[in-house]
């Protein structure tokens, strides 16, 4: 079977080219008359769509191959090669990356189309699409990269685009600050990634630093180095996928336009960390300790973010925390070595979270950039299409059967239970309940009850078709995606898991059917309880609450931002100014200061000999002569 194909590299190239063309077009007309939005829109959407078509081709080509050797590679050129280090700008499509490829390009295309409507009228329309295309290109490099270094290109590229798009409305300082925060926090993660790569390379990378070679040599990895590599790589994943302690940037990232939040900060980029851990499953599988760390951090993040989500007012912030929470689930999944479950949750989550964000975008669009849910209400009648699609998204997010989220989340929880991580399972179930509660709090407050802001309510209406059609497509996906991986007890045979299996190193633990059913029933019960509580509290029009005590504490996110600010940011700046104001002139410069001081002192010291009488100078001379004579006459004999 021929594994080398020459078009894999083109997949990321199309959006990148699009980004270049759009960027040049935008810059050249920035101060003059811009091109029409139609032109930008069409050019902006072409790249993603072509990539999507190629992604499908790749998928079907892989499908036609025998299951145990399903991969395609395309080594475009030698990127750099120094000593033992040979990095090829290569692309690899295997079941794992092809799954990511398909849904990233699919959702990416949909969101591009949606953005044509959402961004219309914006003066930086061209810039927006240029960045979006650049993002998609980077994301595709990340997904398709044949080795960690190529992946890192996409990894940093999406970080850059995230920065650019968060600070898209860059006249507002807060947005730029949010962008800076995102980039810097991501960079902290990238540090982990780079160091992880370095350790990995020196351990087993000498005979090839791409996934296929690494996987072959992974047995050579000693447990100690393996642990170090796993933890360092996980730091990278934490940064990108917003896990404790690096999750703080994601809620702030909602400063960007809503399609950006949907595409980058919900559906694709933030799941890169999960993808990376799954990619390195052949290492993580060797180091169970690292897996446990990943799982625990994931599930704790899920809990923390869910608690924050319960008390937020901003519709996008609620969704942002739910994203963090769901990412926590995914890490719990990959942490307990259920990689396919984690990736499957990535997959379903992409649909329903993109859907929810785009729905929220429609609401915000309709209410003229109002984001506070306590200023909304009763929108169900005015925006039925949005309402119904969002409801599907909410049910999927809450994990209500038979929506997609149910299957993926349940698979993770079940894997945690089956692999003996009862604590994780327990917290996971609790978080599922909380998730259901805050999701339906949002739905009920926004769409049910009485309108709280009459004026805005009167103007609200469903968005134009270019925006609602993607919503419906995504709603369909959120509804049905779960059936792709139907577990055995529902008569399915875990199609996605089997598809992914060749790319991953995992083993499926087995427990009795009773336990599985009981656990599932418990989860569903908790979810329903969450929805019911939300219904009781909010369905009939509650007013904006005054938070006190724990609620206030949680509303302010446990003051973690403030804590980081005092513990890291302020000291960092303080150290900088201490260095500049005190250390640099007084301590570091000490060798210069001391030597110049010595010179000056020596000068004033020798000054006293300069009496001004020529006679005395002659005496000096004679004394010198005399001393020399003494010395010489010593040596004469």
């Amino acid at each position, binding site marked *: 079977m021929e594994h080398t194909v020459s078009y894999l590299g083109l997949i990321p190239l199309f959006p990148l080219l699009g980004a270049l063309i759009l960027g040049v077009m935008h810059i050249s007309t920035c101060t003059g008359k811009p091109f029409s939005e139609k032109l930008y829109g069409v050019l902006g959407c072409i790249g993603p769509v072509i990539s999507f078509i190629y992604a499908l081709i790749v998928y079907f080509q892989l499908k036609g191959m025998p299951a145990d050797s399903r991969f395609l590679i395309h080594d475009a050129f030698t990127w750099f090669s120094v000593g033992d280090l040979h990095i090829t700008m290569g692309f690899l499509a295997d079941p794992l990356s092809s799954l990511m490829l398909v849904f990233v390009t699919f959702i990416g295309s949909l969101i591009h189309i949606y953005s044509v409507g959402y961004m219309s009228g914006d003066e930086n329309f061209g810039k927006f699409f240029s960045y979006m295309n650049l993002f998609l290109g980077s994301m595709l490099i990340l997904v398709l990269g044949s080795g960690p270094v190529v992946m890192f290109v996409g990894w940093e590229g999406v970080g850059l685009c995230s920065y650019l798009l968060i600070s898209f409305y860059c006249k507002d300082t807060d947005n730029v600050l949010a962008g800076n925060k995102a980039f810097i926090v991501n960079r902290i993660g990238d540090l982990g990634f780079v160091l992880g790569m370095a350790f990995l390379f020196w351990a087993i990378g000498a005979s090839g630093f791409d996934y296929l070679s690494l996987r072959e040599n992974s047995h050579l990895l000693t447990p100690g180095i393996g642990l170090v590599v796993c933890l360092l790589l996980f730091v990278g994943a934490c940064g990108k996928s917003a896990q404790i302690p690096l999750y703080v940037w994601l809620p702030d990232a909602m400063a960007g336009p809503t399609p950006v939040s949907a595409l980058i900060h919900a559906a694709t980029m933030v799941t890169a960390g999960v993808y990376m851990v799954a990619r390195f499953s052949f290492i993580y599988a060797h180091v169970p300790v690292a897996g446990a760390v990943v799982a625990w951090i994931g599930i704790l993040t899920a809990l923390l973010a869910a608690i924050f989500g319960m008390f937020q007012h901003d519709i996008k912030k609620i969704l942002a925390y739910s994203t963090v929470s769901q990412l926590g689930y995914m890490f719990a999944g990959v942490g307990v070595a259920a990689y396919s479950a984690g990736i499957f949750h990535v997959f379903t989550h992409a649909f329903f979270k993109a859907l929810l964000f785009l729905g929220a975008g429609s609401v915000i669009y309709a209410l003229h950039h109002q984001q506070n849910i306590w200023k909304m209400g009763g929108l169900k009648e005015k925006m039925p299409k949005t309402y119904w699609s969002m409801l599907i998204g909410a049910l999927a997010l809450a994990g209500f059967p038979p929506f997609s989220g149910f299957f993926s989340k349940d698979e993770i929880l079940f894997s945690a239970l089956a692999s003996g991580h009862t604590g994780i399972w327990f917290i996971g179930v609790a978080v599922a309940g909380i998730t259901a509660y805050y999701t339906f709090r949002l739905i009920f407050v926004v769409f049910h009850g009485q309108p709280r802001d009459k004026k805005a309510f009167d103007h609200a209406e469903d968005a134009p078709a270019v925006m609602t059609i993607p919503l419906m497509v995504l709603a369909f996906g959120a509804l049905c995606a779960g059936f792709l991986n139907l577990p055995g007890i529902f008569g399915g045979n875990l199609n996605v898991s089997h598809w992914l299996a060749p790319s991953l190193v995992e083993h499926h633990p087995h427990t009795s059917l009773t336990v599985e059913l009981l656990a599932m029933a418990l989860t569903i019960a908790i979810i329903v309880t969450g929805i019911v509580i939300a219904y009781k509290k909010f369905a009939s029009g509650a007013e904006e609450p005054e938070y006190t005590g724990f609620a206030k504490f949680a509303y302010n996110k446990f003051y973690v931002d403030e804590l980081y600010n005092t513990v890291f940011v302020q000291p960092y700046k303080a150290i900088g100014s201490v260095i500049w104001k005190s250390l640099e002139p007084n301590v570091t410069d000490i060798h210069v200061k001391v030597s110049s001081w010595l010179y000056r002192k020596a000068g004033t010291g020798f*000054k006293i000999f300069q*009496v*001004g*009488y*020529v*006679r005395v100078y002659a005496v000096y001379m004679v004394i010198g002569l005399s001393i020399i004579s003494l010395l010489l006459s010593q040596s004469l004999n």
Partner: protein
Amino acid sequence: MIQNYLILSVILFCIGILGVVSRRNVLIVFMSIELMLNAANLAFIAFSRFHESMDGHVLALMVMAVAAAEAALALAVVILLHKHKGKLDTDVFSLLKG
């Protein structure tokens, strides 16, 4: 034999130095320098005699010429100083003090 001449030359030279460093009268300082030049001349001539070469004579001649030039200039300077300060004390001229 030659040692005697040379030692005499050294003695005269040292006396000259003594005059330069210990006297404050400009004219005496100047004459002490002349004495030192003469001491050097004596050494030249003595060497010349014992090496039976006349290069020393030539050098002595040149020293004399230099001494004459020096005398002309130095005395001009002395006159100038006397005109300005009315004194012959070297310590009056201490403009070099740092």
